[in-house]
């Protein structure tokens, strides 16, 4: 039953309705039925209000029961953990807490926190030791014993140093290859720069000599 129709039924007879209300009512029910329902509802509401009064002793009984129950509850007070476990919360709150915990868990796994700690690191390094040694120098100009001439790349005086650039680079590459091809001890490679002014072969000879001396 629509609220408006019900309100009209409870308040007015059909004849007391306005034209607009009559139009509204007749769309739903006929005039005769409206009057019948109106009278019925009016009398029913009146009759339904006639109810016997409640027994006054009932309240006293209930209050006594309430007191007794309260005393029992005080004696049987449950431990806090049991009360906590029995505490009821809405389902959406439980779901929200689980979702929050999961999101925090995944967030922590994605971006681990890096804590930087200062730490002392000991680097083991060995310096190269040079020692001056006196050695005999051959006096004769024997070509067999003469050490090979030092590889040196110099631009010729005839041409400009920048015009023959490709030739210079090629010479430098070949010199480098020759130097690498020379048989030198491994430790020699550790040196930052080889002794200047001597070829690789000379240096190797010098190295062998040093080994013999020591």
């Amino acid at each position: 039953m629509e609220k408006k129709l019900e309100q009209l039924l409870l308040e007015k007879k059909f004849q007391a309705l306005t034209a607009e209300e009559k139009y509204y009512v007749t769309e739903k029910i006929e005039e005769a039925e409206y009057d019948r329902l109106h009278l019925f509802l009016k009398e029913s509401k009146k009759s339904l209000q006639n109810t016997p009064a409640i027994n006054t002793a009932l309240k006293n009984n209930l209050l006594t029961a309430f007191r007794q129950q309260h005393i029992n509850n005080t004696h049987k007070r449950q431990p806090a953990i049991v009360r906590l476990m029995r505490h009821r919360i809405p389902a959406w709150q439980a779901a929200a807490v689980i979702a929050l915990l999961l999101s925090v868990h995944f967030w922590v796994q994605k971006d681990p926190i890096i804590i930087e700690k200062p730490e002392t690191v000991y680097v083991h390094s060995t310096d190269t030791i040079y020692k001056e040694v006196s050695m005999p120098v051959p006096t004769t100009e024997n070509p067999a014993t003469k050490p090979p001439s030092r590889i040196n790349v110099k631009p010729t005086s005839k041409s400009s140093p920048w015009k023959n650039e490709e030739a210079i680079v090629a010479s430098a590459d070949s010199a480098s290859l020759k130097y690498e091809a020379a048989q030198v001890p491994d430790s020699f490679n550790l040196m930052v720069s080889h002794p200047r002014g001597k070829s690789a072969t000379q240096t190797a000879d010098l190295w062998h000599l040093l080994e013999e001396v020591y």
Partner: protein
Amino acid sequence: MRRTADGCERSFSELYDRYGQRMHNYFYRMLWQDVRIAEDFTQDLFLKIIEKRAYYDPEKRFSTWIYTVAGNMVKNEYRRVSRKKPLPEMKDILEENFSENIDNVVFENQLNKALDNLDDVQKQCFILRYQEEMSMKEIADIIGCPEGTVKSRLFYTVKKLANNLRVFAGVF
């Protein structure tokens, strides 16, 4: 109700003052207009409130909750009493009691009998609406059905009752 749940006797007393008579009326009308049964059920209802006060959901309206509990008690009683009290046919009642001197008392008796002949849910809707004066929304919450269903049920019930009691129409 929260205070009652915490053991406050004064709040329980207040609760009883507000709802005691109303629940008594409800039980009286729903359970065959028997005062003794109505009192027993009212007492049982408030004892339930005392014992099960922890189960009250504060997010719900107390009136809705108490009428829902009362409605369940009535349903259980209907179930327990496999057959409702035998009621004479409506036609017989009307023929037997109808007279030119009919008054409201007679109408009330006939109305009560007509109500007892109704389906339980129809009866509950009618009483909650026109005796307890509850809104459609509250009735829907108590019965546990959509508001539209309550409206249509009420309209059907009113028409049915008015039709059954049409013999009084000329006397009102």
